[in-house]
């Protein structure tokens, strides 16, 4: 056994290797992405690994590998499970053969997400077991056990880490890497794998009959623990359990629910030994709802009566506050000093030289009255530039765009979508827009990579997750095949050409596509691209501020209001095209 200082997701990935994983697939999404990124960075790799185009595709791939007897895993962020919900629900009926783990990472407080949904709800909905680790070490240990649990109960197992586990770090005890691997063999069994009504009715009955066995298998793992120490108790799940342990007073009982489904008899016995119980969990009140069903006569505090926040994430201080509300602590041991006021905010912004910024700038020039539905990716940061009017979920730029265009709204609609997002769920929306005659422009912000989640390759990158060259695909050909009336590709660093293409699109009717293609600055730099920096000639600069409004973080100004350029400059040259005085020039030129 060795001890290492690891990120939660790295520890989870190591556990997969210890369990002898054969097949891993996933679609990136914070906070889940580093699991696959760690697996694909392994030098010695005896398993198959892929980045899939979306979560539904990823889940189906890994499910099939499990049916072939392989130990498989699929990873995604919580909202990805919505995309994969269709196969998820029925995979509970067909079951798993090789251990099959579905990792769906939740993001309480929505640090990098569009909502705060709780994966444990899906586990309940689909009647599947679910593991909810409270620390990096437990995430490691649970993941290792998850494969065997799946094989034992013959079902997919959901694994729900949260941001503060995935992106936590800690000293972790690791086990040996397994040498055991399985080659997939598909055994035909239509009654199991063809869910026609006659089969599926029987499968549903089988799933229900399994539940007591599942509850027992989950309890036998030992992650659900309880210690009676007094008349009041705190019950916690996930990372909240670590916070509770930090602040719980002596003489207060503690129950930790690490795995679901909960064994009702076990919980009831514990609850009935107490007068008062506080339930602390992030996300939905999953444990609390179950506990309230069993708690007749016992006073219960939790989200449902306002003792615990229903949204956001918890912390030791938040848990202490809940204990005060429940009368378990007299006062919180934490002070809450006031943060400094009046500081200018420092939100994340597009990198210096990001092609998305240049495209947004051109869009605003050509469509001053445009409506700009957008999507999810680095380019969502275009909100600060006034070119992101809507985002809901991946793929919803083009569909919201066509809906607005067909609603009778007269202003021009210009939707933006990244290349990874277009391939994820954008193509169907484009076909639909063309088919239903939406008068709109779709701009594909093609930086050849899935940037926001940490620069994972996609089919447009030309490389697989294993680092092998992939068969090239053509966004132009896809868009033409969808029936778009106008498809033109431009380099957003060429401002004049980009303005021209957008004007041409504006002049036409129908569903038009402009592909703005320029590699992400970060991947370009990693690939060795070096461009000369730009600088401002102070003699020529009139201090008009036009370049500063472009918003590049490499641009600043001096006390006289004259522009200057710092070392962040990546040499895109767009500010030089914007400057009306011609004061911005390439380094080394006069």
């Amino acid at each position, binding site marked *: 056994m060795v001890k290492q*200082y690891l990120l939660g997701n790295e520890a989870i990935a190591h556990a997969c290797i210890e369990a002898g994983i054969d097949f891993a697939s996933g679609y990136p999404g*914070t906070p889940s992405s580093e699991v696959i990124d760690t697996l694909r960075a392994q030098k010695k790799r005896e398993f198959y690994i892929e980045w899939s185009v979306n979560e539904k595709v990823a889940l189906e791939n890994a499910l099939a590998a499990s049916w072939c007897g392989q130990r498989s895993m699929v990873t995604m962020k919580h909202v990805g499970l919505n995309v994969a919900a269709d196969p998820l629900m029925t995979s509970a009926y067909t079951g798993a053969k090789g251990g099959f783990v579905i990792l769906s990472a939740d993001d309480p407080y929505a640090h990098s997400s569009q909502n705060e949904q709780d994966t444990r709800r899906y586990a309940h909905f689909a009647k599947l077991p679910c593991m909810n680790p409270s*620390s990096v070490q437990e995430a490691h240990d649970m993941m290792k056990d998850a494969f065997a649990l799946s094989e034992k109960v013959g079902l997919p197992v959901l694994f729900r880490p949260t941001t503060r586990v995935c992106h936590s770090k800690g000293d972790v005890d690791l086990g040996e890497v397994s040498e055991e691997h399985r080659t997939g063999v598909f055994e035909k069994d239509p009654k199991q794998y063809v869910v026609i009504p006659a089969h599926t009715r029987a499968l549903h009955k089988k799933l229900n009959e399994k539940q007591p066995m599942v509850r027992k298998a989950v309890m036998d793992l030992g992650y659900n623990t309880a210690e009676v120490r007094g008349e009041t108790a705190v019950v916690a799940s996930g990372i909240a359990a670590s916070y509770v342990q930090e602040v719980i007073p002596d003489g207060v009982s503690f129950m930790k629910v690490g795995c679901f489904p909960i064994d009702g008899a076990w919980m009831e016995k514990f609850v009935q030994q107490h007068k008062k119980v506080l339930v602390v969990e992030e996300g939905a009140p999953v444990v609390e709802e179950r506990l309230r069903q069993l708690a007749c006569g016992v006073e219960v505090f939790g989200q449902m009566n306002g003792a615990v926040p229903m949204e956001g994430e918890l912390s*030791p201080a938040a848990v202490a506050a809940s204990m005060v509300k429940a009368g378990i602590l007299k006062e919180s041991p*934490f002070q809450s000093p006031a*943060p400094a006021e009046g*500081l200018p*905010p420092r*939100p994340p*912004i597009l990198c210096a030289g990001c092609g998305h910024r240049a495209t947004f700038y051109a869009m605003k020039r050509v469509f001053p009255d445009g409506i700009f539905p957008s999507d999810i990716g680095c380019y969502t940061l275009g909100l600060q530039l006034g070119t992101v009017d809507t985002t809901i979920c991946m793929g919803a730029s083009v569909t919201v765009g066509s809906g607005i265009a067909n609603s009778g709204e007269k202003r021009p609609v210009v939707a933006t979508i990244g290349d990874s997002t277009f391939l994820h769920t954008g193509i169907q929306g484009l076909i639909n827009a063309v088919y239903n005659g939406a008068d709109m422009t779709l701009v594909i912000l093609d930086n050849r990579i899935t940037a926001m989640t940490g620069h994972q390759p996609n089919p447009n990158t030309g490389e697989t997750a294993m680092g092998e060259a992939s068969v090239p695909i053509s966004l132009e050909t896809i868009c033409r095949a969808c029936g778009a009336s106008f498809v033109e590709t431009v380099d957003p660093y060429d401002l004049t050409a980009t303005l021209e293409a957008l004007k041409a699109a504006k002049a036409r009717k129908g569903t038009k596509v402009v592909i703005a293609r320029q590699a992400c600055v970060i991947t370009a730099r990693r690939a060795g691209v070096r461009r000369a920096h730009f600088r401002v000639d102070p003699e020529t600069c009139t201090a008009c501020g036009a370049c500063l409004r472009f918003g590049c973080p490499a641009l600043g100004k001096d006390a006289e209001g004259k522009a200057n350029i710092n070392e962040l400059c990546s040499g895109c040259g767009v500010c030089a095209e914007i400057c009306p005085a011609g004061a911005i020039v390439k380094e080394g030129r006069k």
Partner: protein
Amino acid sequence: MSSYDLLIVGIGGQGTILASNIIGEACLLEGVPIKGVETHGMAQRGGSVESHVRIGGTFGPLISPGGADLMIALDLMEAVRYRHYLKPEGRIIVNDHTVVPTSVFMQKLPMPARDDLVAALEGHPVTLVDAAGLAAEAGNLIVQNVVMLGAAAPSLPLKAESLEEAVTRLVPQKFLDLNLRAFALGREAGRS
């Protein structure tokens, strides 16, 4: 058992994560438990980032406001933004420089002056470090994070040798001398 709680703050891209990894590795070397958590994902793109490190930590990874023993700030304004995380007597090791956020130009917000930022840290023991100057002296501006870690070393409950050994384990061989020089220069500055 209570932990020694350290907050490392800065701007995405300044290398807070390497600094926390070095401390983690040093804890492993000394057999001290450690927990931490850091900013990943969207917020990293030039945004304000924080890394919590709990030396001797056995519970959760989050430091509570008012609970940190020490803060290493790679940017002066970020030190002010996270000051409330410190205990009243908590120490601050701060880079004497701030990057003007783009929001100042885009939204025409007032930018606090350097002296006002320094004044806002009053009440805590503060060590101002010329990270850029010392990194340049070491040989490259990219090692400002290691300079700052060096400056914090005399305050940390870890041996300087463990931190140096951790640097040796974590940085690529060809940059090792550069980083060790940066660490030594920072350490010197942190002592004064």
